[in-house]
């Protein structure tokens, strides 16, 4: 029997959740025995080779490209997991949500205290278009499991993966559920 396939992706976030995945230490060897990785920044595969069993997304949705990527993941993953506060709740990137986008950009690129001699708001075909807000994943597509934390601890991630791969209920001891 082929090993289950996993894909991962990060959107607007600090990559900390991916670090936390790697932080499972030597269990990563066990994981490698249990699964194969498809599309993921960990192996730098940028497109789905084929549909996978588990998709893991870190980060909130903040531009048009993210929407596309997320929908692509939903289409290609049997089970889709949001990991980390940015993906599943409000977090640092979403702190801009109560300020209109234009004001945000102007503050960052035109009027902020670190701007010298004016400035410009970057605009290029290759830069995705920002959304008005940073959205948690489930406002855009269906998310099957949520793993909160900033980042979720390696143990949380490990527990969740093992449960999913062995078909058990996801249950966490008190210490593993954290919003920070």
């Amino acid at each position, binding site marked *: 029997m082929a090993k289950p396939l996993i894909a991962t992706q990060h959107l607007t976030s600090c990559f900390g959740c991916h670090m936390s995945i790697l932080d499972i230490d030597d269990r990563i060897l066990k994981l490698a025995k249990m699964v194969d990785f498809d599309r993921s920044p960990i192996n730098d595969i940028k497109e789905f080779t084929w549909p996978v069993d588990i998709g893991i997304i870190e980060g909130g*949705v903040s*531009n*048009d*490209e993210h*929407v*596309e990527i997320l*929908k692509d993941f939903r*289409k290609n993953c049997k089970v889709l997991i949001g990991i980390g506060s940015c993906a599943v709740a409000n977090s640092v990137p979403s702190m801009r949500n109560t300020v*209109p*986008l*234009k004001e945000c*950009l102007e503050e960052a690129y035109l009027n902020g205290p670190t701007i010298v001699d004016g400035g410009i*708001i970057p*605009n290029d*075909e290759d*830069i*995705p*278009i*920002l*959304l*008005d*807000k940073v*959205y948690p994943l*489930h*406002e*855009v*597509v*269906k998310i099957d499991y949520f793993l909160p934390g900033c980042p979720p601890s390696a143990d949380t991630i490990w527990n969740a993966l093992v449960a999913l791969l062995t078909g058990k209920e996801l249950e966490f001891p008190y210490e593993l559920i954290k919003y920070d």
Partner: protein
Amino acid sequence: MSEDHALFIKKVAEKYGRDPTRLMDILLEVNARYGWFSEETIGHIGEAMDIPRVKIRDKISFYTFFSQKPVGKTVIRLSNSVVEKMKGAAEVARAFEDAVGVKFGETTPDGAITLTYAQCIGMSDQAPSALINHTPVGNLLPEDVGDIVEAIKNEEDISQLPQALIDVNLRRSGPVVFAPMDAGTAVRAALKMTPEQVIDEIKKSNLRGRGGAGFPTGKKWEACRNVKSDFRYIVCNADEGEPGTFKDRVIMSERANLVFEGMTIAGYAVGAEYGIVYLRGEYEYMLEDLKRILEERRKKGLLGKNILDKKDFNFAIRIQIGAGAYICGEESALIESLEGKRGAPRERPPFPVEKGYMNRPTAVNNVETLCAAARIMEQGADWFSTIGTEASAGTKLLSVSGDCSRPGVYEIEYGITVARFLKMVGAEHAIAAKIGGPSGRLVAPNDFDRTISFEDFSTGGSVIFFGPGRDLLTHMKQFTEFFVEESCGWCTPCRVGTTLMLKEFDKIIEGRATRTEIENIKKLGQTIKTMSRCGLGQTAPNPILTSMQNFPELYEAVIKPVDYIGTFDFAKAVSAGAEITGRKPHSDEEANL
């Protein structure tokens, strides 16, 4: 200038003895002069009353009649409750905007006119309707609006406009409330008995409260009488704010004497010397008439000291005007408001009969209940209990509005079927009836053989009919908006829950919902009902939940057979970014699933 204000405010405060429990009256008088409350005004009131300004602000910001930004000399409050919308309030609103030259929510630059929306103002039988300052106008047509605005600009007397002639609209009188009466008969009959005998008679009659909850009146009075206290109070609840009710309006204009009679009897029965009528702010135009009637009663010895020469039976009545808050109809919120605070309901127990107004035993009764009590004194409990059904003695006033040919107030005997009632009011073609106003249920035709009574469809009095072609779901949304607007905000399940309910329901109405949303909304509704502090939250989910129960086909028709639809709206989310960059976003073909 500022000293002027301070002096005026100080005088008003002194007029009420700087009594914090009379804050409502003080605010009403200050409002009558300035039309709104600046921070400066708030500061002056605080100083004059020796109350921290934050407490004054707390109270002002709670009531819709009090504004914290300047308003025009004339404020036009167009009612936009459900029935008003059905009857063309939107077209009338456009006409007002055209004639006045500003949008709703705005004031003309010369400070002459403010346009604003109001909840139900108790005129659903004559919708569309509005309050022009305190004067109600009804049966508005877009083509009348020009003349009305002209009259306002010319500073004419608004109450002389043809639209200001309020129809009584009493369509059917019954033996209890609207039978002929003579002032004093009921009180005289009561005074022949001991207070205990009065209570026994009321108990024997099986009279239950007409304000919605249906609590046995005799039991309430007895409980109030039996609590040891130096003072007791009678409160008449005339705050009717449930959209679609206006029966208390008709009682107060046609049978005020019977109401006062009932209050006096209640005072005698429970041992209270003081009664307060809490009259909704929307009915302020009745105040002068009511005061006159009270004065007449005093002259006749029906109020005051040693009433009808009964030694040591003293009873006085005062009228408290409200300032626009539906929740103040809830008895404990009403009491808070009477005491000069924001109208947030209290926790129960203790009930008002134990600790009510000023922490003294207080019997709060609906206007109609008090009328019935007076009539029972006149005619006897035996007579009363032969009317209606065994569990629901007497008559009920129903305020009928919506799609029917004869809207108005009907005094019917309990036990009438909905079907018979439909014929009476000319609503034979109704596809649905909302019995009990927004907080009641949406009844489908297959239940029209059921009865209006405490044991079946119990109602405080509002009955709204919907005719063929009405979009029921949209109306359920509007009812829900009413609760969002009127939630007092004290407790989280109601404050946040009603808003969430509306958000979820929007998805349904806009065709962006799956079976998941239906299940979510049911679950959410149960949480709000179980966890909310008072009756408002506990019934707020009813429009949606009862329509789901009785009209499932409406929901089946709009939900999508897909797995999931997010709340995310790509076009809306990307538009600001696209505009700033002047670029086209990645196409979102699949984004719209």
